[in-house]
């Protein structure tokens, strides 16, 4: 698979980093909940926002809930954990081992969801930064709800205009499946990387590959 942003080997490197990050996140989870958390091999997709919206919604307007945090450092952007519909609620209940039915997510659960997203996003971002020997800085996570095209509230700035030509920012989508306490919950990690950062990102990966001898 080719994409307009990375070469195959760059993609391969990125996948491996995400794999490490998700693995660390799973480890952090399993320590927290005292239970094994199965996380699938992440599937990485570099795409544009418009394509991502289409892929997520399947053309329909669907509710999404998730956690987002912004990052800056050697690359700037926004990271998000996204779940279709009520799955975010389900993830919280699975993580805290709660079976009590309730229609609404409570304040405490909201915060729990924020921490879950925080753990996953931080691990992925930190792994990428560490692998590339760069620094990254994250903000506190926020939970949010969105519908349809507005599913990425952090995309409000897009499309960005560069030298008079509209250019869509790069979106790194990572699909992961959680399996916890006999529940399977699928979601996405989305990393929206500012256009001005993409070149820095590419060169950082190339440096890393060069060091490996590629």
């Amino acid at each position: 698979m080719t994409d307009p942003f990375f070469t195959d080997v760059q993609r391969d490197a990125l996948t491996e980093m995400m794999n490490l990050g998700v693995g660390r996140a799973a480890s952090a989870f399993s320590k927290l909940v005292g239970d094994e958390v199965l996380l699938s091999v992440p599937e990485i997709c570099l795409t544009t926002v418009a394509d991502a919206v289409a892929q997520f919604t399947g053309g329909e307007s669907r509710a999404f809930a998730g956690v987002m945090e912004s990052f800056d450092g050697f690359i700037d952007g926004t990271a998000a954990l996204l779940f279709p519909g009520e799955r975010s609620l389900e993830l919280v209940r699975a993580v805290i081992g709660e079976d009590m039915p309730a229609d609404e997510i409570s304040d405490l659960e909201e915060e729990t969801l924020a921490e879950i997203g925080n753990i996953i996003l931080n691990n992925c971002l930190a792994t990428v930064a560490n692998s590339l020997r760069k620094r990254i800085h994250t903000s506190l996570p926020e939970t949010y709800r969105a519908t349809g095209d507005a599913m990425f509230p952090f995309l409000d700035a897009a499309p960005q205009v560069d030298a008079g030509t509209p250019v869509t920012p790069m979106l790194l989508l990572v699909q992961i499946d959680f399996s916890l306490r006999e529940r399977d919950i699928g979601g996405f990690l989305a990393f929206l990387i500012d256009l001005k950062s993409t070149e820095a990102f590419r060169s950082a990966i190339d440096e890393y590959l060069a060091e490996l001898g590629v």
Partner: protein
Amino acid sequence: MKTVLLVDDSRVARMSLRRSIGALLPDATIVEAGSADEAVIVAGQNTISAALIDFNMPGRTGLELAEELRLSYPDLPMALVTANIQDAVADRARALGMTFIPKPPDAAAMQAFLMGDAA
């Protein structure tokens, strides 16, 4: 003269491992495989003295591959090198007589495996 088998679907991961091995065992011959099936063939074509196997791979997992290799090479030192660093996975690796090395592999763990277990 050692021949080390690296099994990982990620080329970058294989390169990373090759570098760490090269630093520890400059004379070692390193053979690579991108999947479990390929690993069985490569192992048959070479005299392998140690194997480093990734856990998460398309097709069969590293643990499934290790089980098969264990039948043909009962004494082969094997290490599971994985980003899935939960205790449950480590326990399963150890149950197969494998060394568990979390990704990214640190030099000490690699040295312990290559110079110790697989020496």
